[in-house]
């Protein structure tokens, strides 16, 4: 795999940093739609992490892959 493409894999570290450090997000405010921050932050990250995987998939796909 080309050097350029490999760099994209580092993007996958972002979800780890965002979700594994509770001090970032263990609080109530700001409240959205009745949900405390602690909860909606983690829900948002489920979606964001999936999008990041999508991005990396497309960016690193070999033309020869089945």
């Amino acid at each position, binding site marked *: 795999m080309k050097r350029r493409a490999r760099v994209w*894999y580092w993007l*996958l*570290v972002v*979800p*780890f940093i965002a*979700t*594994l*450090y*509770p*001090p970032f997000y*263990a*609080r*109530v405010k700001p*409240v959205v*739609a*009745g*949900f*405390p921050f*602690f*909860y909606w932050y*983690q*829900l948002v*990250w*489920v*979606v964001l*992490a*999936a999008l*990041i*995987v*999508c991005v*990396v*998939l497309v960016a690193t*796909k070999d033309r020869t*892959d*089945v």
Partner: protein
Amino acid sequence: MAVTIMGFCASRWRSANLSKLDEWALGGRGFGTIVSWFLLGGDLYTAYTFIAVPALVFGAGAIGFFAVPYTTIAYPFVFVVMARFWTVAKNRNYVTIADFVRDRFGDRSLEIVTALTGFAAAMPYIALQLLGMQVIFAQYLGFGPHAAAAENVALIIAFAILAAYTYTSGLRAPAMIAFVKDTLLYVTIVAAIVIIPQRLGGWGHIFAVAGSALATHKPAGTLILPPNLYFAYASLAFGSAMSLFIYPHSITSLLSAKSKLVIQRNSALLPLYSILLALLALLGYCALAAHIAAKDPNYAIPLLFKAFFPDWFLGFAYAAIVIGALVPAAIMAIGAANLFASNVFQEFHKDRPRVQTRYAKVLCLAVCGAALLVELFVPVKYAIYFQLLGGSLMLQTFPATALALYTRWFHPKALLAGWALGIAASVAMAKAADFKAVFSLPLGGGHVLVGYIALYAVLLNLALAAGLTLVFNAAKVKPGADLTVAADYA
């Protein structure tokens, strides 16, 4: 009924010679993205998950939500690491993760302990799917003196069906049924999330009531994670994510995929299930807000459904959960049987005869039977403890498996010692913590760090393995041969 027939018909699907192990155990390694999505989802989101996660949120609050970051980080990990495993497994025709360990390290003991660990962790897992089913059966059969006996009969019948179709069709059976199961589950959860919060007065109200209810529990639960549990939360998520895909059922589903791309695509698509899991966890709070009185938190979700769903839909929802137990149980039984047949049983035959599919099939029946016995005779409390410990046991094989995909620096005997230490440490910490999943590590000065036992144990494991590797290398103790080559991983 329909599901049973499907199970048997599944053997006709993508017809092939089912006496070949690849065909029986891995569905011919030909499942595309969509089938794999249902199968992997069916694996990972099980009856037990659906009962136990909300139960934890219902009983203890925020800490139960660790399942959400756990699945969030699991997928990026799968995308990279398990895709690599799929590649080497395809190139060298592996059926289990212990096959890889054997080739990579040339060490039979390491291969056998890896297999046995997977096998040991599989049993309580299957038994707990039965628990999930039992909780549902209890809704119909009530709680009277005859109820327990009736439940057991229902359980035995369900399991006989499971064993029979798995024996005949192998992985194709749960793959096919996974379609049905996941669809039912999706519909149920979406319906629950749409109907219930609205009837309870909105999420703001739900969180408020849940918060006050949690404070009255003994020990008190919390709505927002308190600082003394930050590390516990993160370590539970991280440790669980690292071990998730080493479990026999995950490996089995993974290896049945047609290509590496299927795995990678599913890493992006499976999170759809995580959203469901998050919503399900939040239903635990709905149960609190609805003042569901459940002496056993495991009954929170079934009772919540009973309170809000009309009768006809209730049957549908309960069926979803029951089928949700059979699919992962089947996959796990196949995975466990494979491990024993390919990696343990084989070792006691001098010339390693080609794995007989028949052995695997019979073992699968045996695994189903054993799990049933565990569920019938071991008190529930202990089955759950063993399951939590199971996660810790699985993580001890991480160095010899996931890590080994990238480096062969560790000496196999050092890994073996590390594994043994990890297992011993897990059991010791579990006993000290009264079989909860987290242990309070004393830090001196009266401070403690509460963390996931599995993580503490694997760190000790790695430390010992690293130390001994240095020692063995210095003493020129020969490691086994690595039969894999760089090209196998590309």
